[in-house]
């Protein structure tokens, strides 16, 4: 049986893993390479690296770091943040990443998803989206608006409409990162996750809000996510991947057990 994926997310700034609440007050958590190896050896199913510095300050992606990760990690990993064009996608994939994640770029230029999927294959193009809850059903029928650039800009796009459109353009997977839940450790945004997961035919990764194993059980069982991103709860050492998986297993959620 296909297992549910637990995906540690490493926000990287100046070659340090950082974590803040709603993109504020970032603190250094450690070395990205060391943390990647520890998670890979510890049972993580996949890794995601966001070079948040690149995204916020329009700097190019740190390809050297992608290569280093590819050399030491033997599980799939995705890279996002700072991808500006097809050439960037190519460089990241060539450096050893399995997937590239595009967010703001796809909003500005949706055709890039289509071209990327055609050239490199849908399986390696991930759409990241940062929806925020809005109370304006006329403009946003799903109840969520897509934001970009670290939640700083609103796009006027409905989250579900955007997800469906991106699927049609050929993305292989969608990471739904709730602005409202991000960094809170108070649980995933189940309504939003379920809305997207049950309305597209491609895998959906829940992101934002993971604080306890129960939060993951909920997002898999109640919101039908295919994968879930964890950050603070594992970065702080409060939970190991193995401990999370053993609770998921006990709750009847299929997880990878041999690594």
């Amino acid at each position: 049986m296909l297992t549910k994926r637990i995906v540690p997310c490493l926000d990287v700034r100046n070659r340090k893993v950082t974590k803040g609440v709603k993109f504020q007050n970032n603190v250094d958590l450690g070395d990205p390479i060391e943390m990647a190896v520890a998670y890979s050896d510890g049972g993580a199913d996949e890794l995601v690296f966001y070079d948040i510095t690149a995204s916020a300050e329009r700097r190019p992606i740190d390809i050297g770091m992608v290569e280093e990760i590819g050399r030491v990690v033997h599980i799939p990993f995705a890279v996002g943040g700072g991808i500006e064009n097809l050439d960037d996608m190519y460089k990241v994939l060539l450096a050893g990443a399995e997937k590239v994640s595009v967010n703001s770029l796809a909003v500005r230029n949706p055709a890039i998803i289509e071209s990327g999927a055609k050239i490199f294959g849908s399986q390696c193009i991930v759409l990241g989206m940062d929806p925020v809850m809005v109370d304006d059903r006329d403009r946003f029928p799903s109840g969520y608006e897509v934001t970009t650039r670290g939640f700083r800009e609103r796009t006027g796009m409905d989250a579900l409409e955007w997800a469906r459109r991106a699927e049609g353009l050929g993305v292989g997977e969608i990471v739904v990162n709730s602005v409202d839940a991000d960094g809170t450790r108070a649980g995933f945004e189940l309504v939003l996750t379920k809305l997207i997961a049950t309305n597209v035919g491609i895998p959906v990764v829940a992101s934002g809000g993971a604080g306890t194993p129960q939060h993951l059980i909920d997002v898999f069982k109640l919101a039908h996510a295919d994968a879930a991103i964890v950050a603070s709860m594992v970065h702080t050492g409060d939970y190991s991947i193995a401990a999370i998986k053993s609770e998921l297993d006990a709750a009847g959620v299929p997880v990878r057990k041999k690594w």
Partner: protein
Amino acid sequence: MIAIIDYKAGNLTSVKLALEHLGVACAITRDPAVILEADRVIFPGDGAAASAMEHLRELNLLEPLREVVAQGKPTLGICLGTQVIFDWSDEDGGVPCIGLMPGHVRKFVAPDPLCKIPQMGWNTMRFTRKHPLFEGIENDSEFYFIHSYYPAPESRDLVMGETEYADATFASAVGKGNLFATQFHPERSGRVGMKLVENFTKWNGQC
């Protein structure tokens, strides 16, 4: 030396990094001479069948690939590389493929809306036969898959391992003499997958 065939399909670097990690000499190449001189060959790939076949033709790589397999050199197909060694793929409206492995490649049909296509993630493989490449690997171990199409060999004899997804129990590993091929990515399947890659680097091509 292991030749990793470069036909403009993705995922070549992760294969190279896995071999380098094992300390095995390898080269990503599209040079037929290098491929023919190699001790063993890996035929990887991500992407779509039609463009893969087009590139193989355009780069004159079909003959060298057929030749190394005919010579008995240990050859490992991975993912799209595995799919295009069959006779035919249903992808892109139907594509005639290389025909090194009798059978064809079909698309998953989702039995319910919550079953996503592509299959993306870790799934178990149940051994259907003993094979030297499975040495030291437990039955029902998980491997990393990412695909919408799956191999359907003509004969059960070619199936080495099986996996269940969507509407299919499909051949996740196939073998025919010195040719072995997996639908999953062993080079991205953690320690278990690396064991399979390591077994390949030592395999003499006999079963």
